[in-house]
């Protein structure tokens, strides 16, 4: 997806790509005259949503130096681009409007942001008894920086405290199936359960899936995970057309 913004004599556009270490988003910036060289300015993994730019690198095939002016224009364009996307996402009522639950008070369902990571790690450790810091750092990085329109990491917040979260994404043509939403994780703090928080998270994620254009949501879980199995059943989910098979590798 490319956007062009002319600021004075400068043209900027967003470049998205993939390399071994993951996806990147960069700004290609150049002065508007025929002999001008363009620069590709990369911004660090820190999200521009309220975060800081930890690094900015530029590459240019001729090795010319990126001027401060161009760097500034590129950075401003980058901030503007993502701010507009973020504001557009905030206008989606199902995800950003505070939802009042009679039992749990006002629960605010919103996309996870950088500053949530440590609290999410703590919540997961409190519920599961297992500290999975590396797993959550990796998951957070994956869901926070790539393919925002099809990946969703939502948290339920009450009075500044995260009470639960849900993670899902749209997967297409895997196992021969057309695009559908998949829920990969859901968790609610033990003391906050049975107050509708999980239902609100599930509902918000399904709304996000609908906006993404899919009509089906699926999940998979262990047969003996009675609690979560009962939760998904209570949300109207029934057994789907798949059977999970496995064997032990000798």
């Amino acid at each position, binding site marked *: 997806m490319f956007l062009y913004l002319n600021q004075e004599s400068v043209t900027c556009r967003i470049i998205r790509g993939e390399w071994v270490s993951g996806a990147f988003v960069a700004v290609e910036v150049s002065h508007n005259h025929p002999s001008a060289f363009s620069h590709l300015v990369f911004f660090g993994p820190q999200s521009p949503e309220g975060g800081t730019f930890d690094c900015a690198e530029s590459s240019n095939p001729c090795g010319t130096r990126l001027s401060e002016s161009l760097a500034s224009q590129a950075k401003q364009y980058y901030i503007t681009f993502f701010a507009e996307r973020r504001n557009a996402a905030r206008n989606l009522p199902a995800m950003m409007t505070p939802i009042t639950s009679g039992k749990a008070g006002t629960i605010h369902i919103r996309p996870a942001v950088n500053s949530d990571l440590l609290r999410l790690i703590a919540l997961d450790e409190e519920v599961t008894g297992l500290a999975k810091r590396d797993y959550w750092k990796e998951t957070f990085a994956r869901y926070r920086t790539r393919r925002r329109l099809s990946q969703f990491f939502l948290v339920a917040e009450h009075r500044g405290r995260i009470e639960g979260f849900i993670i899902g994404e749209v997967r297409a043509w895997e196992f021969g199936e057309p695009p559908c939403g998949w829920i990969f994780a859901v968790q609610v703090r033990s003391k906050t359960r049975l107050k509708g928080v999980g239902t609100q998270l599930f509902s918000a994620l399904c709304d996000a899936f609908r906006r993404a254009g899919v009509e089906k949501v699926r999940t998979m879980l262990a*047969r*003996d995970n*009675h609690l979560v*199995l*009962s939760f998904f*059943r*209570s949300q*109207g989910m*029934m*057994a789907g057309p798949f059977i999970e098979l496995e064997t032990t590798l000798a």
Partner: protein
Amino acid sequence: MKLQKASSFALYAVLELAGNSTSQLSGTEIADKYGISAHHLAKVLRDLGRAGIVDAVRGVGGGYRLAVNAKRLTLLDVIQVFEPIGPQSASKDDPELATEAGCALRMVLDELDDHALATFQSITISTMLKLMARRPWADSQRFAKPPRKFASRR
């Protein structure tokens, strides 16, 4: 898959009681709605009472009411009062396990039983009431007859 009659009758009764939580229902009323033997249902309701799932309300206008939280009571809780669900352990002397075909078939049947157990264990009576309200079978050819309405008790 088919359940034993007693299990089905028990589930009908429990669902009716859960759906009419503000009043009690008699066994006759439930039997009439489902076209089942009132005598057989009475025995089922007695067993449900012994299991602590329903309470009998005596006296004029008496009947039965649900004794437990419908959000906690699962289909398995009700069915297991009348029949075993899930893989049944075979004794070592079972001739079925003396052959390779018998052991392989037992593995496959255990797989089905595991699924049945997980399914019944994961669906509460409250979830069943939501399913009944949604009526996803309405467009299915498999369920041709419309469900009968239950007359409200005054």
